[in-house]
Each structure stands twice: as C-alpha cells, then as structure tokens.
C-alpha cells in the first residue's frame, strides 16, 4: 500500500531523512519510532503531500506522492502531531467542512459525525465551539475528522496526545478494527508500550535512517531485550546518557540537602 524508495530530505545542513526505503502492505499497523528529530514527522509530512522530498520517490495505493498528490490525498487520513483545527467552529461545523472537501454528501457527513460523536463522547457538545474544549476533546475531533472520509491509509502522529484512558482504549480498538478491514495504519509515537501492543511491525528510525525493522517480538529476540523500550534504548540512546542522568539527579538532591 505504501512504497518508499530512497527518499531524502534536508532542512538546511540537517539531513532529516537519508535514502529512506520501506514497503508497507495493506492492513498493517505500522509503528514508526525514533528519538526526537529522527525524521518521523518529516516522513509523515512527505507521505501526506505536505512537503516534497528532495530526492527519491514514494507511492501510496499506486499513486506517486508528488505527481499525483491529489489522488494520494483522497485516500489518506492524517492526524497531525499539533492537533491543529479551526477552534472557532463547532465539531459539527468542522466535520461538515472537512467532509465536504472530500465531496461527501450532507447525509453521510451527518451520519458519520453522529457515530463519531457517540464513540468519542462528544454527543452533547456538538454545537459548542471547539475553543472551549480540553486538549483531549480537541484531539477526538481531529481523529474523527481524519476518519470521516473512510481513508485507505491512516497517518497518526502521536494520536493519543491528551486523551484519557477510556478514549485511548477506544482509539486503540478503532485502529485494530480498521486494520482488520484492510486499512493501513502508519503510527508514530513515543509511547512504546502502546506501539508494542498495537503494531504488527515496528521501524526504529535514527538520524533519518532505519535502525531496525521487524515485529516487536522479532526485534526483542534479535537484540535479546525484554521490552521494546529496551530495544529502542539500545539502538538509539547515547550509552553514557544513563550515567549522566544519575549523576545529575544526585547533584540536584545534594544541593537540596544543603539548602
């Protein structure tokens, strides 16, 4: 479903992605991990047509992301990391606006909006302006707007930001169900426990290149670690970082004692 071949992207002197190559089949929940600045969000932005790659090509559902960007965009749904939306609107207005951009008819938008409102507990707040919502409530509106047009591929960049435990369970279940129906989920996150439990396959990105690629179980086996967190740490962390953190904590505690 997603095919990335030699994609490179630089911002000034910083190489965000370096000849990235990946094949992601339909129906897969694909976990995309990496330390801060590894290039995760850049990958999502390139694949969703928000920024162009410097070189290399990528296809989604057989359409080239650069030459056929509108065809690609019709088939994807994106939950951006920032969770940006028009806060002057109500959820009903926002969904109507996004739905109509995908040429959904009024009836379908209303029906799906109602379903999402019920699923995410927004039923009683459909006519309230979003600027009065909590961060978690806003995130629910964003997630629903990404799913409203029933996309084949879903890009989720930290989708659980600000969500409460119940909403997290709902979103995770929704992702599993969508994958079972053949949707591809490209899932970026720093919450490794969720990725470990949710994703069929995990890629760990470091400095714009793939550091590891496999199922969570195979990665743990390969690195002989007990958890995905330990695998991630082994592959991406400065080996002295743990010691440095301990020294700093001791110093802070010492200063507090002196006071």
């Amino acid at each position, binding site marked *: 479903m997603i095919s990335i071949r030699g994609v490179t992207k630089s*911002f*000034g002197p*910083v190489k*965000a992605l370096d000849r990235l190559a990946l094949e992601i089949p339909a129906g897969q929940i694909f976990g995309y991990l990496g330390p801060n600045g590894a290039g995760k969000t*850049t990958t999502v*932005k390139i694949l*969703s*047509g*928000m*920024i*162009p790659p410097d070189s290399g090509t990528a296809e989604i559902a057989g359409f080239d992301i*650069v*030459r056929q*960007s*509108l*065809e690609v*965009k*019709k088939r*994807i749904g*994106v939950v*951006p990391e*920032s969770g*940006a*939306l*028009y806060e*002057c*609107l109500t959820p009903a*207005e926002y969904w109507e*606006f*996004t739905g*109509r*951009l*995908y*040429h959904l008819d009024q009836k379908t938008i209303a029906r799906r909006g109602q379903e999402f409102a019920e699923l995410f507990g927004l039923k009683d707040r459909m006519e*309230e*302006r979003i*600027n*009065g919502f909590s961060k978690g409530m806003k995130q629910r509106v964003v997630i629903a707007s990404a799913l409203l047009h029933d996309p084949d591929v879903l*890009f989720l960049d930290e989708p659980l930001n600000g969500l409460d435990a119940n909403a997290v369970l709902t979103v995770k279940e929704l992702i599993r169900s969508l994958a079972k129906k053949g949707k591809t989920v490209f899932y970026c996150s720093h919450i490794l426990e969720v990725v470990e439990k949710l994703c069929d396959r995990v890629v760990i990105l470091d400095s714009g290149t793939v550091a590891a690629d496999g199922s969570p179980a195979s990665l743990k086996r390969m690195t002989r670690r007990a958890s995905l967190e330990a695998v991630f740490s082994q592959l991406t962390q400065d080996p002295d970082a743990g010691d440095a953190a301990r020294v700093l904590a001791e110093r802070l505690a010492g200063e507090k004692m002196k006071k």
Partner: protein
Amino acid sequence: MRPLTEKRVDWGQVRVLAGNGIRLQLRSGRRLPGPRRLSGFHWTVILYGILGFSMAMSLVFRTTQFLYSVMTLGYAMAMIGFSTAADFAWTILYPDEEEIILHRPVSSRTYWLHKTGVLGFSILVLTASLCLPSALLGLLLDGAPPSYPAVYFFAALMAGSAAALAIIALYSAFFSWLKRERFLNALTWFQILLTFSLILFLQMLPDAADAGWPHAEKSGWLLVFPPAWFAGLIQVLSGQGGRMDGMLAAAAVLSLVLLCAVTAGKFSSEYISRLSGPDASGASGRAGKSRISPAAAGWMRLFASDPESGAGYALAAGMLRRDRLARASAHVLFGVPLIFLLLDVLRDRISDPFAASGGAQDLGIRMHLFFSCFAVFYVLKGLAFSRDWQAAWIFSAAPMQGAGRFYRGVKTAVWLNVVIPYYLLCALLLCTRMPWLSGIRHALSLLALGCVGFSLSSFLLRDFPFSLKQMPGDRSLRIRYLLCSIPFYMLCTGFQKWTYGDSRAWLAGIGVLVLVSAAAEELSVRKFPRLIKGG
C-alpha cells in the same frame, strides 16, 4: 521538479473553503463563545464606518466633485491596503492551515481562489463601510448627478480591490524571494512602515484639501496618484469626463487587470508549496545577547531586585528583542505619536506650551499627547500576544509567590527598553521647536503622566505576558482601545491646563503624579494575583 502544484480548480471545494473562511472571519478575535460578543471584523466595520463618515463630512463642503472623489477614495484605498497588510498573515497565510488543509485533496489553485474569495468578501464589506457614507454624502456636492452614489461605490469597489491586490502582489513577491521565517519578519517591518505611511497620508490630507489642490486639479501629475485614476473613472461613468478623465479611467482599469494577472498567475499555482515552505521544520532564529546591561542591572537593583521580578525582566527584555509580535506591538504603539510629533516639528506647528499664548492647546501637542496616552496605556496589554504563547503554562505551573512582582520585572523591561527611549526622543524633538527648558519640562510632564498611565493600565491586565495566541482579527479588535484612552487623555489635558501657567503648580503637579503613580503601582502589584486569570 515542482510538487504540489496541481492546477485543477474544484469549484465545489472553493465554495466550501471560502464559506468556512468567511465564517472564521466573522468570528475572528472572539476568544469566548457567546452570541453577544462582537468580533474583530465587526469592530473594524463599525470603526471604518465612523471614520468614512467623518472623512466625507469634513470634505464634502470644501472641494469639487473630482477632488472629493480623489481624497475619499485615497483614504479608502489606504485603509483597505492597511487592513489587508495587517491581516495578510491570517487571511492568506493562516499558520494552522498547513496542518489542517495541506494533507487534504485541495489543489494549489483551488486553495488560492478560496483565499481570494475570502479577501474579496473583506474588501466588499470594508469598502461598503468606508465608502457608503462618502457615496451618499456625495449627492451634496455642487453639480453631483443623481447617479453619483452608485457610480462612486462601483469605482470604490474597484479601488479597494486594487489596493488589496497591490499589497498581495507585493507580499507574494516577498514570499517568493524569502524563506518563510524571514518573510514573516519582513512582514512585521512592512506593516510598521505601512502604518506610519498611512498616518503620514492622513495627516497630509487636510492640508491638501485646504491649499494647492484645487488649482492642481486634472493636471498631469495626477496620473501617478492611483486614487485619481478611480476618481477619473467616476467622472467618465457619471458622464462628466473629459480627455484627462478618460486617461485616468483607463489607468484605473489597466492597473486592476494587471494586478489580477500578477496575483492570479504563477504564484497561485505554487501557493501551497510556498506555504509549506523550505523551512517547514520550523527551525529559525538567531542566537542573541541575553545579558542584562549595566544600566538595567542598576535599575533592577532599585526597583525589581527579587528573583521573580528578575525573571519577568529577563523574559520581557528577550521577547522585545526577538518576538516579532511583541516588537511590532511596541514599535507601532510608540511610533505613531512619534510620527505625529515629527510631522508637526517639520511643519513648525508646535509652539512653547508653557508660553502665555497657550501652546498646550496646539493641535500637534494634543494629538501627540493623545497617542502617547494610548501607547503608554496599552503597551502592556499588547504584550499578552506572542508566537510562543504555548510556553505560558509555566506561569500556572511555577510556584510563583506573586504575579505582581513578576509583572514588575516585565514593566521594568518595557520601561527601560521602550518607554524611556521614547520620551528621550520626544524631548529631543521638542527642544528643536521650543526653548530647551520648556521642551524638557513638557517631556517630563509626559513622562510623569506616562508613569500614571502605565501604573493604571496594570489594572486592565487579565493575562500573563506572551500567553495568548494571536487570532485573526485580534489586531483590529485593539482599535477599540483608542476610544477607551479618552478619559486618560482628558486627565492629561487637564493637567496641562491647570499647571503649565505656573511653575510652582507644575512642580507640585509632577510631584502628585509621581506619588499617584507609585501608589497605583504598589496597589497593582498586590492586586495582580486576583486580576490575572490563573494567577
């Protein structure tokens, strides 16, 4: 390779996007939900209506039909150009849209057309509010035909569109040359420049009406003055045009066609790729000095020695240097009275306010005083907005003993970095047109009044500095503060009237102002935690 440049236009999407854009425009600057609150856009329409009516009334009995059209259209073009410039970053480059729209199947040209549609709506409404009074009052002009209002309004719409398109064309050119962060910085400076140019223009308009212009009517130099082109169009359409009017009307039509072609051409097809820009990672900025100067350190020791004041000072001083919103807000606020003063100094219109002839009543002195009051009164309020508003969580999370002490540091920074240099400049300018003792005394009076205004304005604060996201219409909404400055301005004129005639009364008055300012300051520091949300 030019990605993201699909040129297809989807008219259905244009309608949806433009409808949404207009809805956002009408709700702009309204932070809290509620049907009774007026948005920034509504405020702009009301104020422009009042200004348009005042302008038309001041000219209708003084000029010919042609010059009336030139001046009122010139005024409308300047105001619409200014409005477009001020809201450009929001109407054309709504920052959040990168993440709301860019991943949706909207072509670049569709997106551009929707922006143009929203802009067209703004131009229509603003032109109506600015020019309908002029159009109707135009019937009172000598020899005005009954068709004048309709013809005038049609030409005003064309003139308003030309002004807005000229700003867009200029900005589009900047946007094509500069990276986004640099472009946004350039935009801030351009807006400041435009504000000052507008003030200059509005100041010179009455002079032009009084002298010279009637004799210069329909002379060749009008060809370089765009409002005259559209005034020529009015003459032609109302059946009163001569050869010169025909040439002016042709220039009007040609300029509009040219501007449409420039703005809707290449740029519209590359619009989204420009928007997502080469520095979309958000990386920007330069490292700057963060040291506290010796003078500031001395001041801090005297007035803001505790750590919380120090934190407030460091934050505000840094933001005034690096945050373009804070910088623009302060520069525009204090630049306006300075321009008024400079103009009146250049035109030799300022006399000694301490002289028996009563120079304190000079228009120049009064205008300068009014805008100084406004600037001092609202500089802190304007500092509530920042690009880094999300960092404001720290104010609620930090174990702050007193928001008042923190704000004292912020005020110290504003005072040292903006207010004191402003009054020094005022003193220098005043001394060029009056005895130096009078100049210094007048500047000292302004400073003392400024201290009072500054302390009193603290009671209006409801938010921590740099804690609000600038929303579309917020700038327009701040225009209404001008009306709120009037009571303080009256206090200032009263002070001049009662104390300038007697040196001892003046000295005692200054003493009283300093005491009032100190007391208000102390009270505001204690009241702050209750005044500020979450404080």
